[in-house]
């Protein structure tokens, strides 16, 4: 079995990967929404 320090590096790798990817995706979604949404007339913005 691999030593605990090595296990922690796998754990850290997995968690940071997921968090970074999700954060990047969230930022991208929000930015894209703001950029495209600028062209949407306010009366069609049904969620506001």
């Amino acid at each position, binding site marked *: *079995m*691999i030593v*605990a320090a*090595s*296990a*922690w590096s*796998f*754990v850290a*790798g*997995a*968690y940071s*990967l*997921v*968090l970074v*990817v*999700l954060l990047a*995706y*969230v*930022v991208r*979604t*929000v*930015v*894209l*929404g*703001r950029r*495209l*949404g*600028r*062209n*949407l007339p*306010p009366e*069609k913005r*049904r*969620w*506001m």
Partner: protein
Amino acid sequence: MTPDTSTPRQAGSPASSPSAGRWRLDPAGTASVGSRVLGLVTLVGIAAFLLVALVASPPDSGRDASINQMGEAVRIMYLHVPVAIVCFLAFFVTAASGAMYLWRKSEGWDLLAAASAEVGVVFTALTLATGSIWGRFAWGAWWVWDARLTTTALLLILFLGYLALRRAITDPVARAKRAAIAGLIGFADVPIVHYSVDWWRSLHQKATITRFNPTIDGLKLFALMFGMVVFLLVYAWLMVHRFRLQYVQARAEERGLDAAIAERRAEGSSGVASPLAGTGAAR
């Protein structure tokens, strides 16, 4: 990401932004008060989840260990299993919304299917990545031709194909219909792939690889369950925004089409004949 302060606030928009500056609701964005609250709850949830999964819960070793004896690496599972569940949920939502679209023929179901597929691709890729990291630790290899892994990999390609098909079709009705059927076909394929790979593997190797055994209890079980709740919240938040983004894109397409038609009409009325232009190009 720079805060956009140049756009003036709409006069009619509800004055509900909690604070000024960077964190106020952008009137042009896809956020609403509800999604902002959901986002805050999700953020708090993620912080709590990290605390539980990485600090509070004990390693899988010693007296209370499960039969897998995974040590600290068990923490990968608190992440991997919820992400995988969201990935399958996303694909299910895509297929079910496709079926609903074929039944009700309303745009909303199509937008929902598209949004779920987009989020699903991200979660499927993360499932494969975290599973691979786990596999490298537990089996010593980044990849094993196991039924679950292989099915997930094919699922990712199916999702990518679904999105590619959507991008390739310009007419919204044709796109919705074809995409709905593509989603359903893909969904029907998942169990067949799983069984065939399962049989294929069992033919070649008798000893099954060590799997994550769900016989865990206490804080470890809590971490797993809490992870599921948190990632479902993440999925919900992403779905809200992606759905609205789809809606914005659909309206933009519509306006583009209207503009093109108006242009064509203007051309026609001014007597400029455009022979052959656009007659067969659409299909």
